[in-house]
């Protein structure tokens, strides 16, 4: 029995991959990424006393902008556009405006400012009470979309393969693109409804604000959905059973949860691990959802995240659909020399 089990296990490469890869991922993540403490933050100093205040700030504050002509509105714009974590308005008094949407950085900043005594008054923007749920819910919306897009979609597609109905569809006069569109559209709609429900519930139950433009948020969600649906379609093309699809989707899902900045702040991760986070679509959706909902940010400041997601959507979705089309249209596979001759007009394959 033991020998039989080992023989089966060796032939099940995915399970072996899970058994070997998962501990390594967890080791790396928790060793290098699991850190809630942010040891330096980006800061801007504006106002007439900007030069002096910037010079007096401790090293914890990485001052990237010093603008003696800048106003408080300028400081707020820098925070809204996520260009800095804290902005000091240095006039007759010094006021620190803190970006509360970046929870762990904000907590570190508030701690550091408290250590500086009464010289600086502090105002936390976007999340005044530094409530965890306000930051988590925009990210969880992305996680739900990821779950539906990858696991549910891939299972739905693989079920066709398991039941043999994919073969049936391949013989029917439907274009592969129509099959793909027909298969993913319901998941797209269900995921969109889920997103609206979770967003509204988050606002009602946890008082999460929605300060930005709904259309900007919807556009980001739609592009992100194409990425995760593409991943789901791709998973279905490399899986023969629902079990395999779930196993493979797990490989995609776990890094998104741990390394997208949803739980552990990207700024607190070791650089060797942080770059993985920047390869994950959820990282960029979280930037958009937190930016729009909490900071009221617009496309003018969030465009880099939109651009990365759009590129990901194009690459992933194209690759996945091309692979799926190959399953549905075997005559496209280039290796045969035989011919399919149509016996009646238009029958040539």
């Amino acid at each position, binding site marked *: 029995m033991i020998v039989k089990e080992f023989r089966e296990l060796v032939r099940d490469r995915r399970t072996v991959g899970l058994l070997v890869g998962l501990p390594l991922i967890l080791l790396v993540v928790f060793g290098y990424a699991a850190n809630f403490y942010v040891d330096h933050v980006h800061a801007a100093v504006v106002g007439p006393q900007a030069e002096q205040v910037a010079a007096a700030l401790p090293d914890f504050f990485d001052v990237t902008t010093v603008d003696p002509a800048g106003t408080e509105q300028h400081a707020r714009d820098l925070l809204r556009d996520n260009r800095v974590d804290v902005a000091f308005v240095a006039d007759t008094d010094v006021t620190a405006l803190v970006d509360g949407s970046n929870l762990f950085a904000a907590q570190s900043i508030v701690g550091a400012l408290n250590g500086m005594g009464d010289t600086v008054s502090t105002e936390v923007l976007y999340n005044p009470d530094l409530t965890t749920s306000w930051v988590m819910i925009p990210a969880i919306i992305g996680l739900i979309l990821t779950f539906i897009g990858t696991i549910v979609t891939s299972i739905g597609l693989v079920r066709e393969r398991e039941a043999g109905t994919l073969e049936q569809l391949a*013989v*029917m*006069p439907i274009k592969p693109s129509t099959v793909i569109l027909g298969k993913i559209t319901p998941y797209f709609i269900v995921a969109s409804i889920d997103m609206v429900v979770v967003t509204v519930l988050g606002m009602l139950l946890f008082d999460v604000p929605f300060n930005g433009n709904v259309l900007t948020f919807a556009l980001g969600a739609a592009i992100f959905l194409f990425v995760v649906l593409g991943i789901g379609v791709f998973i279905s093309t490399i899986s023969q059973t629902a079990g395999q699809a779930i196993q493979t989707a797990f490989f995609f899902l776990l890094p998104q949860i741990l390394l997208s900045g949803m739980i552990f702040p990207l700024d607190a991760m070791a650089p060797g691990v942080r770059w993985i986070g920047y390869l994950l679509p959820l990282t960029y959706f979280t930037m958009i959802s937190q930016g729009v909902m909490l900071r009221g940010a617009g496309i003018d400041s969030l465009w880099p995240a939109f651009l990365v997601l759009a590129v990901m959507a194009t690459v992933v979705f194209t690759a996945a659909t091309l692979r799926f089309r190959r399953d549905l249209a*075997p*005559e496209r596979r280039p290796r045969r020399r035989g*011919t399919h001759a149509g016996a009646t007009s238009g*029958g040539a394959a």
Partner: protein
Amino acid sequence: MSFGLDAVTVSFGATRALRDVSVEVAAGTVVAVVGGDGAGKTTLLRTLVREVAPDSGTVSAPPKADLGFLPASSGSWAALTVAQNVDFAGGVYGLAGPELDARRAALLDAAGLTDAADRLASQLSGGMRRKLGFLMAIVHTPELVVLDEPSTGVDPVSRVDLWRLVSETAAAGAAVIMSTTYLDEAERAGHLVVLDDGHVLVQGSYDEVRAAFAGVVTRADAAVRPAWSWRRGRDRHEYWPDGDAPAGRDVVEPDLEDIVIALSLSRRADTVVAG
């Protein structure tokens, strides 16, 4: 109008699934493809419906809109009702409205599935599911109907129903080709194709296949040459390709099962000699 394969060879990696196979399926006839596991039956059918591309040879088949296919799996969507399955297939082939309603009603009535119209396909018996799959394959009255083992796992009563539907479809003018492991069933087809290891051992009507069969088959309690024998009930049948059975052996009139096994043994023996 006829369809089929002409000198078709298909490989999967190093494995030759079909070797120089030619089969013609004429309108109004039923062609039965028989052979053991791995003989190439499914590959032949999947090549005909363009699911598999041939290495060489020519495949003649109508466009997809005039092709009906029942795969070896159920051929229907488990979470849809019987009527919804037929409607989906009909819709794909361009049927709609009153035309689809009439066609659905006629098909369900012919298959005895009218009372099950609102049942989920997953709740049907094996025979009913195969009948449903068959209805979906012919909903658009295709020119060529390809059925992969439509009666495997189906009870005898449902098999009779299925055969009636298949015969009616051919009688209406369609060219029908089906694979089967039931040789008694295959004998009823107008044209037989016997496959073994990707080769066509013999083809023609049942009478032609019997007439072309050379050698004799004997029946006894024990075989003289076990490698050339097979069990039939309590007896062992034995094939003598050159007709040189020992005197006193009980010679039997071979049925299709005897012929298929005898020809397979003969081909394998030739392969060993040639190798």
